[in-house]
């Protein structure tokens, strides 16, 4: 059995991260209006932080996840997205509103998975999705805008697994003894913006190899800046009335 096959096998065995790639897409022609303040409603981010063992199994880490959640929220407020006048967070909801929110979170996940798989990255694009950017959650989402008080909704997902000592040692040995390249750690994330009146997906940005150590305040700021890279701009200011 040749070494290249083995190398490929080990890579497959260790569930290494996908090829480093980062990409964003914007609904053609969209700019934020500039005739009124823009309120962006942030939904509770999906945050996972874990530790990756030598075998690639991820152990969820409670403290890291809780800290990352706080750091990321603070960083979002501090580093307000370019087009936003104001950032508001969706409050905890229960009862029918809670169910509605859960449904739209799930729907957003489904839609963004589709965009990530079939639109954003080369290699697996559907021929009909190569151009254009027509995705929507439907107008029913307006109810969430009313509840949370926002014009646009921002969804954020980050998934981190830091390579454990064992993983790093195996990485070294694999390279040194077997001549096999192996990744350590997984750091992926994506962010999406929807219009809370029409439900249209306006912008999405995904990165399978993100920077910024989310377990620290500075790192979380860097992560948020990367997630909001290429965030849509506010329209050109209207010329002052003569």
């Amino acid at each position, binding site marked *: *059995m040749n*070494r290249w096959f*083995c190398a490929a*096998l*080990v890579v497959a*065995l*260790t569930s290494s991260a996908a090829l480093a790639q980062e990409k964003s897409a914007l609904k053609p022609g969209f700019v934020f209006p500039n005739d009124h303040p823009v309120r962006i409603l942030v939904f509770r981010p999906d945050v996972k932080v*874990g530790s990756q*063992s*030598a*075998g*690639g*199994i991820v*152990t*969820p*880490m*409670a*403290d890291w*996840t*809780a800290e990352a959640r706080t750091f990321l929220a603070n960083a979002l407020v501090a580093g307000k997205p370019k087009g936003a006048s104001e950032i508001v967070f969706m409050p905890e*909801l*229960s009862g029918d509103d*809670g*169910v509605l*929110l*859960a*449904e739209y979170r799930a729907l957003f996940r489904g839609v963004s998975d589709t965009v990530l798989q079939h639109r954003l990255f080369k290699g697996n694009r559907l021929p009909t999705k190569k151009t254009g950017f027509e995705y929507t959650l439907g107008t029913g989402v307006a109810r969430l805008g009313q509840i949370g008080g926002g014009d646009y909704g921002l969804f954020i997902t980050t998934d981190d697994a830091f390579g*454990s*000592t*064992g993983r790093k*040692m*195996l990485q070294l*040995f*694999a390279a040194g*003894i*077997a*001549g*096999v390249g192996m990744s350590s750690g997984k750091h992926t994330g994506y962010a999406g913006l929807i219009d809370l009146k029409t439900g249209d997906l306006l912008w999405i940005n995904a990165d399978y190899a993100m920077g910024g150590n989310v377990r620290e305040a500075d790192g979380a700021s860097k992560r948020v800046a990367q997630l909001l890279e290429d965030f849509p701009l506010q329209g050109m200011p209207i010329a002052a009335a003569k």
Partner: protein
Amino acid sequence: MNLGNLRRFIAVAAIAWASLSVASEPKPFGSPATHGYQPIGVDEKGIWAESDETERELKNSKLLVRDEKLTAYLNKVLCREVGSERCTAARIYVVRQPFFNASMYPNGMLTVFTGALIRFRNEAQLAAVLGHEFGHFEARHGLLGLKSRRNTASWINWLTVISIGAGQYQDYRTAFWGNHYRFSRDQERDADFRGIRDMGTAGYRTLNASQIWSGLRSEDDATATARGVKSLKDSPQGLFASHPMNAERMTYLADEAVKVGVGNDFDGAAEYEAAISHLWPMLIDDQIKLNDFGGSEFLLASLATNGWTGPLLYARGELYRARGRATDVQQSALFYRKATGMPDAPAQAWRGLGLALARNGDRPGAKPAIDEYLKRNPQAGDKPMLLMIAGEAQ
């Protein structure tokens, strides 16, 4: 392998071993069912936090059956079974999924699928499953499972890399994962035995635990017969099965039943029926939509062991009408008609009767049935369509 390679192998193996064992991490102790218990150590804290997140989502899920009376009953059964102190550590959720399953999460969240509720014949069978899940919780099987997965995957990777380095690639996956799944099946057996012991202590007839599995095997047969295929109930499930086979569980639980809870005679069939019967229309409806005619017929027949009630006859009509083979619609009309003659007939029985008759071209016969249905259910969502079928102007 030459001597140099061998030395290298030993050195690397020693380092691998060291990296696998995490030093100075506090080891969880005591029962997690102790009042006020908090997770101990990084691993347990991690999987608890992860389960908390899942629970948070489940609470707002559309699939959650929000029925306080039902949940209170399930809690009551668990408390009767494991005692009123231990049981408060668990939170039971009913999830609308028409398959036989229940799951325990490390943090005490216990989910029961509606597909399990339709299959239990009595409270003792419910208790067998709740006790099994509670056994997983108390024995920390979630935590041990994570550790086993982690160690398995790490050993595979280390040994694979070493074998490549030694120029003699070997595939360790089958042996190591096979071992992990054997461990998983052992955990299931352990939970089964914990469950049946708790059943025995609580006074339930312990043979019921075994009867769950014999029932599922008969259902497999019924499904296969109606589909004209071979029953899979005794097909080996292979090296990577997470649970022991139903036949095995049926057998060892029957053996255990003569050792624990000897003399117990409480089945709780009437109690179970009283607590669950208001859900049957939904459970049966979901079951019929699985397109498993044989399995559904089998389930209806076992629910009808004490006689065919209005709701059961109605359900049988729905089952036949949904399959819709040549004589099925006619057959369904007979079941609906029988149902309408029962004191506990659901209003939908008249709807089914009307639709079945109309489908067979008997419009004059369909009209009074549909009229009767709309009289009993004036708010029917499909009223305009039904009126059209009955040949009335809207």
